[in-house]
């Protein structure tokens, strides 16, 4: 029986009329210039996100989100189920890769100044996606319920307390009470599996639609010179190149996941003191260190309050970066480049410092 793709396609087209989408995919063009390989970062994030969804669903089949069952269920996944340790390892490492690529994507957009007009909204939705990804990582980190993740969560959910007026309520909302308990675990699971995916899907769809609507950006100097940059069609040329990158990244991810599978620390104990060497995941390390360097009391307020306020102001400033950097081609634009470099150095230096 010969499957006639043409008739198949025509049947769907009569009913769904998806042809405009396919026509758009062939019409969409991706500029080719010296910085065009940074275009691959966006779809790489999607690759890792997809891997997270698949491995997350597989883990959720056997994970028990209650205080008694959580760590034992993960122990069971790792020891009894076929390749369970690998699924968990892929989920854990893919989270790392996804957030790493989100940051690389952010830096690429920053340094190519792709956030300038008319792409401000894309930048802002992107910042929201960054925050949601990091919250994903934070909520997921508690779920094994071992002693390191319990301590990290206690510290992490304590930080909003420093915010005036609403801080206490935010902490209570996150923890399900005043303290971290079994309710916190179930609540974080709910965030991780239901609420955050819906939120991230909503923001992601807006982000991707905006990217399609505005088209791919070209480097600043080409735009100033009004040069016509050679372009490749998105389908099939650029997509095929993306697939190559995806396969290489998949291979790297699987290699690292097999070689460096995470272990499961002893069960969390709500009454025990924090274990030595407690620290959050790597993408929070620089924030962790920033909190640590402020002294306990600075005048009328605590050091923690000052640190949290500074971090919040920085995040808001980065969120509104397209509006701050409204003359990207001038000298002001160069200043923001230096800010970007300074930010990267600060983040890396503080992360390394917190490990020493």
């Amino acid at each position, binding site marked *: 029986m010969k499957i006639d*793709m*043409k008739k198949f*396609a*025509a049947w769907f*087209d009569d009913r769904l009329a998806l*042809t405009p989408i*396919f*026509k758009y995919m*062939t019409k969409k063009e991706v500029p080719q*210039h*010296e910085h065009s*390989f940074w275009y691959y970062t966006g779809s790489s994030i999607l690759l890792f996100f997809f891997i997270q969804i698949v491995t997350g669903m597989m883990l959720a089949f056997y994970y028990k989100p*209650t*205080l*008694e069952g959580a*760590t*034992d269920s993960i*122990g*069971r996944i*790792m*020891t*009894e189920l076929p390749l369970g340790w690998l699924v968990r*390892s892929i989920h854990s490492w893919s989270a790392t890769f996804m957030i790493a690529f989100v940051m690389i994507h952010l830096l690429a957009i920053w340094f190519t100044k792709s956030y300038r007009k008319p792409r401000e909204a894309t930048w802002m939705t992107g910042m929201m996606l960054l925050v949601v990804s990091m919250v994903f990582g934070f909520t997921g980190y508690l779920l094994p319920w071992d002693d*390191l*993740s319990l301590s990290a969560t206690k510290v992490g959910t304590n930080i909003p307390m420093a915010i005036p007026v609403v801080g206490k309520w935010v902490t209570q909302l996150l923890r399900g009470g005043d303290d971290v*308990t*079994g309710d916190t675990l179930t609540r974080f699971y709910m965030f991780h599996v239901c609420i955050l995916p819906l939120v991230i899907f909503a923001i992601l769809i807006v982000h991707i639609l905006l990217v399609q609507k505005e088209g791919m950006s070209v480097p600043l100097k080409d735009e100033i010179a009004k040069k016509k940059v050679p372009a490749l*069609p998105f*389908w099939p*040329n650029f997509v*095929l*190149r993306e*697939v*190559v990158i995806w*396969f*290489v990244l*998949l*291979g*790297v991810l*699987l*290699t690292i996941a*097999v*070689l*460096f*599978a*995470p*272990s*499961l620390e*002893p*069960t969390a104990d*709500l*009454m*025990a003191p924090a274990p*030595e060497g*407690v*620290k959050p*995941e*790597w993408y929070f*390390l620089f924030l962790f260190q920033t909190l640590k360097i402020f002294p306990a009391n600075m005048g009328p307020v605590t050091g923690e309050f000052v640190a949290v306020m500074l971090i919040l102001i920085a995040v808001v400033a980065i969120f509104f970066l397209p509006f701050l950097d409204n003359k990207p081609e001038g000298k002001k634009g160069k200043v923001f480049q230096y800010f970007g470099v300074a930010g990267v150095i600060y983040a890396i230096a503080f992360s390394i410092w917190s*490990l020493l």
Partner: protein
Amino acid sequence: MRKTRISFFLVMASLVLAPLAAAAQQTGAPPKVKDKAQIKGRAFGSPLARGLYSRASTAEVDPLAKPGAPAAVEAAVSAQAAPAQEAKPAPALTRDVNTRLSTAEADPQAKPGAPAAVPPAAKKPAAKKAEVKRTEPIVPAYSGIKEKTAVFVFYVWLWFAIAVMIYFLRLWIKEADRVYWAKYYEPEESPRKDNPLAPVLGD
């Protein structure tokens, strides 16, 4: 553009080779057991924890964890002989806070309409399990030489498959580029009514 492409692939290659090199170095003498204070947490996963904790294999899984395991039933039935021992295990402080919130306490026989044939023994393994708190970390380890070989074979297969894929994809990319530069498919000029997906799927 060539410089960035070269540097890009250098970065990718180092991403691939670095963990392999690190792993190769680690198969030498196992690291000496360090003081726990020196362990820097989970930030970078198990390379720092290798060789420091006892390795758990599937043989060491707690039999109480498996439903229906003979040991579990034995413990359960012997507990059945003294039903008064339904009370919570001895007060390790840890459990006090937790047992209040525990959902394992719902007595199935307290529910109206529960079939009388549900053996009370089914509840006991839960109470017994609450006592066993794991204090040793579970480090993923191969359960035997067979699994280790299987993983190694998987490795080789994975990279071979990727290499073959990339080889074919490069051919396809060249073909697609050639088709594009030859302006073979211009969606505006040749609306294909018979096969709307022709620009995407080909003929």
